[in-house]
């Protein structure tokens, strides 16, 4: 039997320098270990980390709140069903303040600090445009839920995908025939003065001209504006249809002042529901909207022909038949957009499973697996409707809905086909290096 050497506890105390040396040695040793040794067993038990870039503060906060709730609900569902490749899904949320500069920093944090597998969930187009280049440099798959045309236009990179929500170009193109046939051909457009609004300006103007209509006036309003009446006199007197889309914290003021401006003699109105996302349609001052039309990505009010998938989605996220929170009927959701988070997470799950995703080294395989997708059938994973994904442009295409305000509720009057939303490819991301 061998005796252990006893080391006297008292005696020379280690100096601070010694301690630092030891620490440095330990750190160096840890860094020198091969990756597998530090992450032994990670292949089965480590969670898959999704970096969720959320607009918790700033002008996108209302969307951020509901994107957050939808994402949590989708992650809970996926985990109940056994996670992804047998591993749990973990959402790592970071607020970007709806600010492009902060957005790029958040993406960097996901890649280098939180060791996230992917980045996900960005909505506002200027933040996407500010963040996506950094995601491309870091080779972090970046799944945006933004609607902007910047993905399919070729402006971004191979690591940026939009598989859960359609883009503005396809939306407005599908709306133009409805507006021209039912409402009028002389149109004045009011839109926010940044990338998202410019997509509306450029593509709707072209689409309505293709229908024989014309845009009489373009009125651009900064998204941080708080008072709007001063912009409205620019609306020409012979306008037949007001086309409005607005974002930011003051959308309710925007729509109210639009109503006060016209009073009883308003022209026809066609709005993108963005102008009223997260706003209770019963708010005082919105009565004039009765009889006007809206584009909706997903109808806020449960319709007569509601699908079982929509009912399932509403229940899981906690939204009632009027599109408000089940816990607070005044807390209107961003129903026309937030399904995109739910669907995108399901696309990520499907992509990771078909790529046999194990860790960050398989990021390129994940991109290729998603690029290979085409049909996405109407299901619990895609409650908004069936979709077709275009792997070359990284953009998904789907049905669009037109609703009409009747007695303070939005009733579905028209559903476009997926084909109505197609346009020729503008980029082939698959030719770019991974």
């Amino acid at each position, binding site marked *: 039997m061998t005796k252990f050497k006893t080391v006297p506890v008292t005696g020379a105390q280690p100096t601070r320098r010694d301690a630092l040396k030891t620490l440095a040695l330990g750190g160096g040793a840890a860094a020198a270990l091969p990756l597998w040794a530090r992450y032994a067993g990670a292949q089965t038990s480590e969670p898959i980390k999704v970096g969720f870039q959320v607009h918790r503060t700033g002008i996108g906060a*209302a969307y951020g709140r509901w994107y957050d709730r939808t994402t949590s609900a989708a992650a809970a569902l996926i985990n109940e069903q056994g996670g992804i490749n047998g591993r749990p899904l973990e959402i790592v949320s970071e607020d970007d303040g709806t600010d492009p500069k902060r957005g790029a920093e958040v993406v960097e944090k996901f890649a280098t600090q939180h060791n996230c597998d992917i980045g996900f969930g960005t909505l506002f187009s200027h933040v996407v445009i500010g963040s996506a280049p950094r995601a491309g440099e870091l080779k972090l798959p970046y799944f945006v839920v933004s609607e902007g045309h910047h993905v399919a236009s070729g402006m971004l990179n191979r690591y940026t995908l939009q598989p859960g929500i359609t883009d503005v170009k396809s939306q407005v193109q599908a709306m133009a025939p409805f507006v021209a046939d039912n409402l009028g051909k002389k149109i004045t457009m009011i839109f926010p003065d940044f990338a998202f609004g410019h997509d509306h300006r450029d593509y709707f103007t072209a689409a309505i001209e293709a229908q024989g209509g014309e845009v009489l006036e373009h009125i651009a309003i900064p998204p941080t504006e708080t008072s709007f009446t001063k912009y*409205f*006199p620019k609306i020409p007197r012979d306008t037949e249809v007001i086309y409005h889309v607005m974002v930011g914290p003051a959308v309710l003021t925007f729509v109210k002042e639009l109503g*006060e401006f016209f009073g009883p003699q308003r022209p026809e109105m066609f709005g993108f529901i963005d102008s009223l996302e997260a706003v209770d349609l019963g708010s005082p001052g919105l009565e004039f909207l009765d009889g006007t039309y809206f584009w909706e990505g997903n109808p806020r009010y449960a319709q007569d022909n509601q699908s079982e998938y929509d009912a399932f989605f509403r229940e899981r996220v906690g939204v009632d038949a009027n599109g408000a929170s089940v816990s607070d009927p005044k807390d209107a959701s961003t129903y026309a957009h937030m399904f995109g988070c739910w669907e995108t997470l399901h696309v990520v799950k499907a992509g990771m499973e078909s790529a046999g995703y194990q860790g960050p080294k398989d990021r390129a395989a994940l991109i290729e697996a998603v690029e290979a997708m085409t049909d996405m059938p109407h299901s619990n994973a895609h409650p908004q409707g069936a979709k077709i994904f275009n792997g070359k442009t990284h953009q998904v295409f789907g049905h669009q809905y037109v609703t009409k305000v009747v007695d303070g509720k939005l009733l579905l009057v028209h559903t476009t086909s997926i084909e109505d939303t197609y346009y020729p490819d503008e980029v082939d991301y698959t030719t770019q290096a991974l």
Partner: protein
Amino acid sequence: MDFGPYLMLATLEGTVTAAVLALTASGLALVFGVMRVVNVAHGEFFMLGAVLAWWVTHIVGGSAAIGFVAALIVVPILVGVLAAVTDMTILKRIDYDPERTIVATIGILYILQQVTLMTYGPDARPVTPPFNTRIALPWFEFVNGEPGIYWPWGLSITSYKLAVIGAASVVLMGLWLLMTRSKLGLLMRATEQDRDMALAFGIPVERIYAVVFGLGAAMAALAAVLIVPIQQAHYLMGADPLLLSFIVVIIGGLGSLPGTVLAALLIGLSDGIISVFFSPTLAKILATLVVAMVLVFRPQGLFGAKRT
């Protein structure tokens, strides 16, 4: 829209802006005039007024009018007391040293803004106006040489916006009477003219400072309560009023109440008219240019007295 109705609408909108701006800026001018403190947190007291107005109307419930009247009374007092406490606990401790007060008020700005974000949240919330009737205004035109009246699109104002203009005028009149006719006003003016001499005559200068700082913040809060049924309460809404107030105060002459009101009218109306006819960005550019010109050619402002 035709030129005539267009100009009239722009003037009406500009007057509403000017009324609110005059209230906010006179608070800033008062604080600078009496205390020589450049209050960078002034915009946040404005924001706090709007947020508290939402909070008070929400708690009171009932009809919109009752909640609004309660907010109109309670909110300026709350914000004023908070500002007076801030003065006594922070600004007094740094001896109103000009550089340090700027840094301190920047700190207060961030504290107020972030505490609001943490408690009230990032959402913009509406306050229902106590009354809000749309008043359509007619315009005339000549059809075949005969004058006729017609109702152009958009040429309208709401009763509430008219009330804002009226209320702002009354409050400004009240402030002017307070400064020129009351004992408190006399003490304030004495402190403004010569702090040491006022102290020598037994005026409680420190207490006057707390009152003035509170009153200045209360003016901003009152302006916010008036505007919040038109706009909405949001934690980032303090930036614009702060910038515009500084512009107004510099043009009008720091510390001069009539100058401030006149400059507010000038900036508010030009903001309304220029942004209607050209663009809101141009309106801001021109306002800033005017400030630059005033600083170059008349650094004491239009109405300010030369200081030594």
